């Protein structure tokens, strides 16, 4: 489903953060090479795993700028598995120590 051997980086604006089961998703709007907006569906773990790593439902909001590292879908669709997310001010999201329970 995901190509872990060819990870890539995307920078864009969050349209929606779906804090849902069985997976969470970030809908990220990214400008393509021709300057046209494209929406990517970025899959994450279930809320229990995000919560354990310090994420909360409010950690990512619509309008946030993010740079993400993903393992893209093998079929070439605009989607992938989110491996890392960094905010516009350079803060990596994802470790429990950064956002105490």
């Amino acid at each position, binding site marked *: 489903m995901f190509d*872990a051997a060819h990870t890539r980086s995307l920078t864009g604006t969050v349209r929606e953060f779906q804090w849902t*089961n*069985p*997976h969470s*998703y970030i809908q990220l709007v990214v400008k393509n090479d021709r300057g046209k907006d494209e929406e990517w569906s970025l899959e*994450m773990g279930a809320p229990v*795993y995000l*919560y*354990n790593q310090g994420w909360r439902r409010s950690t990512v909001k619509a309008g946030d700028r993010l740079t993400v590292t993903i393992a893209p879908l093998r079929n070439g669709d605009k989607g992938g598995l989110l*491996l890392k997310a960094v905010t516009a001010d350079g803060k990596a999201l994802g470790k429990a120590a950064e956002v105490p329970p």
Partner: protein
Amino acid sequence: MRRRKMAYGLAMAAMLCAAVSCAPDRAPTRAEQFAALPDWSGIWTSDATEIDISGYPAAGMGGMGLKLIGGKAPIKPELQAKMAAQLAAAMAADARRKAEGWGYPLMMEGVAPMQFLVTPEETLILNFYRDIRHVYTDGRQHLPEEDRWPVPWGDSMGHWEGDTLVIDTVSVQLDAIFHTLLLPLTEDAHFIERIRRTGPDHMEVEMRIEDPAVLSAPWVVNFSYHKAKGLDRLIHNVFENDRSVVEGDSLTIAPPKD
């Protein structure tokens, strides 16, 4: 039945009075019964597999490294080819299957965060997939064989040996709707677990599996857990927003509903 309960009550009284201060000629109070039990509070997760924000282990997407799926079981030589084919088919099917939980014994690997509720009569073991095991410790026995039926979590009876919970489990259903399909055992498999807390933040499990139809010798598997550092509550799984859809031989992500 009354005689068995009385014997259990006296045994319980002797055990508890060794652990707490009370006269051995009377039944322990409710508070004394609870005070004699180990503290397994908190939310526990596997030492071997820590799940990252991706939903996969932080070490990579190369699999969960589950011991019960790892193919290290002493499978009888004449069954190895058949079991390997069955396992490969199950793994392929699993990528497209909507599992309702992990079932037993896979849930005990602890990849899905889990909780133990220890009471004098039973220990409840549950995880984020809503798998639930009732481990009865009040002296009751398994149902007679002719009255048992296989279920995904088996039929479990337990007793305490000091601070170790010893569990005897039979009648485990290896059903396709649960991940337990990946373990190529029969419904006659017999499981004996020894679970204990080994430190403030650690627990250990030894699981012995006997299944003479499949295994050439008993298979002993060990797991260990630590307290999940970021979890102060268990957030259970449902399928409210299942966007994984089949496309050809694989899965892809369905567009958002909005």
